[in-house]
């Protein structure tokens, strides 16, 4: 299959996925007890008030009609208005999203910068003490809840050793947040741990696969040094599955950022979502879910395209 056709097919798939996501979110909106009216008018509202509100908002129309209107509103970028913050949901998310992206970006970058060499080292030293040690460590980090790791980090590096503040810098703009980098150290490390554990495993497996390939044997037979084989050939080839996994890993990273932001009081989208959950601010909750899901779909798509760019051997016919 030519690459263009593959891309078109992949894009169509992504659109279908986003469509299903909107159905899920719409379903959640209507799973609210008493519907959205209860949420906005409060529990004290009389049945008449609710009926009036429902009529006014078109909530008494058939579900497909409502869903269509919901979809049209979304296409215009209208995610509704927050119940508690008196601001449109899209504005709120646009304020917070960059901060979350910076935090998760730094965490993921840190994790990858460590995971790639660790995984390769493990593969080269397979079944030796180094390999076992890191296998055990990655098992432990993978199995540790992010919040527990964060609590331990705060206890050790903020309470016992007063090296870093236990709260992330607050501030409305990205600049204000970035102006106090010491406050970002613990949140970034906290967000990186689980990702590091997962990706060092993948890198180890990918490197092992490649070390068994014919081209490595040929290079060795030709007298190429082991280090050169690793850095010039194996590294590049092993990165392909890592990039693909990264795309699928986006929702996990966002899930982690929810906990990290809540724990360190970092003013990103996770904290916005957390506060919205406390105050039953449904438009914010559902808006965030929608934005994150779409970000994930885009992330997966980009990862697939990148994979094509990095490794021309990737078969495009795969579904």
């Amino acid at each position, binding site marked *: 299959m030519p690459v263009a056709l593959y891309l078109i097919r992949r894009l169509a798939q992504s659109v279908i996925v986003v469509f299903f996501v909107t159905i899920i979110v719409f379903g959640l909106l209507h799973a609210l007890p008493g519907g959205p009216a209860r949420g906005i008018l409060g529990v004290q509202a009389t049945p008449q008030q609710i009926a009036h509100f429902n009529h006014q908002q078109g909530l008494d129309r058939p579900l497909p009609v409502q869903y269509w209107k919901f979809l049209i509103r979304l296409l215009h970028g209208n995610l509704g208005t927050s119940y508690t913050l008196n601001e449109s949901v899209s504005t709120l998310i646009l304020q917070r999203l960059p901060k979350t992206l910076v935090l998760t970006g730094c965490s993921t970058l840190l994790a990858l910068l460590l995971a790639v060499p660790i995984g390769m080292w493990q593969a080269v030293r397979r079944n030796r003490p180094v390999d076992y040690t890191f296998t055990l460590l990655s098992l432990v980090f993978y199995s540790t809840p992010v919040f527990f790791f964060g609590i331990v980090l705060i206890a050790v590096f903020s309470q016992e050793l007063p090296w870093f503040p236990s709260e992330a810098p607050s501030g409305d703009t990205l600049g204000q947040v970035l102006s106090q980098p010491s406050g970002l150290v613990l949140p970034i490390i906290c967000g990186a741990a689980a990702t590091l554990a997962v990706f060092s495993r993948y890198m180890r497996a990918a490197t092992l696969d490649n070390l068994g390939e014919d081209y490595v044997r040929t290079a060795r037979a030709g007298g190429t040094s082991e280090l050169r084989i690793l850095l010039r050939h194996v590294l590049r080839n092993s990165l392909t599955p890592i990039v693909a996994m990264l795309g699928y890993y986006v929702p996990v990273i966002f899930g982690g950022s929810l*906990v990290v932001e809540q724990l360190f009081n970092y003013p990103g989208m996770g904290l916005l*979502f957390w506060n919205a959950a406390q105050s039953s601010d449904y438009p914010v909750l559902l808006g965030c*879910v929608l934005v994150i899901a*779409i970000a994930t779909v885009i992330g997966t798509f980009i990862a697939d395209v990148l994979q094509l760019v990095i490794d021309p051997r990737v078969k495009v016919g795969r579904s």
Partner: protein
Amino acid sequence: MTSLETVPPVVKAPALPLTLRRFLRNRLAVAGVVVVVFFVLFTFVGPLFYHTDQTVTDLLHINLKPSGHHLLGTDAVGHDELGRLMYGGRISMLVGLAAGLLATLIGTLWGAAAGYMGGWVDALMMRVVDAGIAIPALFILLVISAITTPTTLGLIIILGCVSWLVPSRLVRAETLTLRSRDYVATLRALGGGHTRAIVRHIIPNAVSTIVVAATFQVADAILLVAYVSYLGLGVQPPQTDWGGMLTAGLDAVYSNRWWLIAPPGLAIVLVVCAFNAIGDGLRDSFDIRGR
């Protein structure tokens, strides 16, 4: 000609001795089994020997340091922490186990159906899975918690319903290879029903994939229960679980009460590690790829 009824369900002989021997050679996996057995005994048998009152609060004895009387001290409302660790562990492990198995069941049926049907049905079913995966489980769980406070059974069902996606992908991939095997083709040629093909033939042959997926799923579910409770939407007091015991975590850090954080936190890490190690061991001894 033989009738459909006489076609015996073909199940690969699981070659248990070899599989078991391979598993026993994996020291980490065996350690995992030991840890799980220990915690099952600790949480279910432990309270028979170590009596504590976990329903009535004791405000005269709050936040006590570990001592001979309270081996792990007491918490902010006077519950004995060691007793609470046993009591909470039951819920963590039972809810995790039930939710993990439920997720595997849903995922198996969905994945087997999608892989077996093939074509556009498969494509659509897998896009639903993609959509589910695109929404992080924690976010869905928080939205649900804003709507309602679940009972323990409700919590199991909700957790099962948000985490069946990964097993469904694994089982689908397995089904795709099984579907083309001769015995399934034979069954179809003899006019066997689709449900029969899936339930009697595809799923039994994918059992090693499913068992491994279930083990990882239980590990993930125990973690997820901890997250859910930590975020304050798990089982309600006076019941608790390990994640719930950590909700007061940061306050305990600032007031230097390590005995309220370390035991439940380490218990979660140990049990989840154990299930993951068992899953790794099973996967290697069944010799299947995935995850």
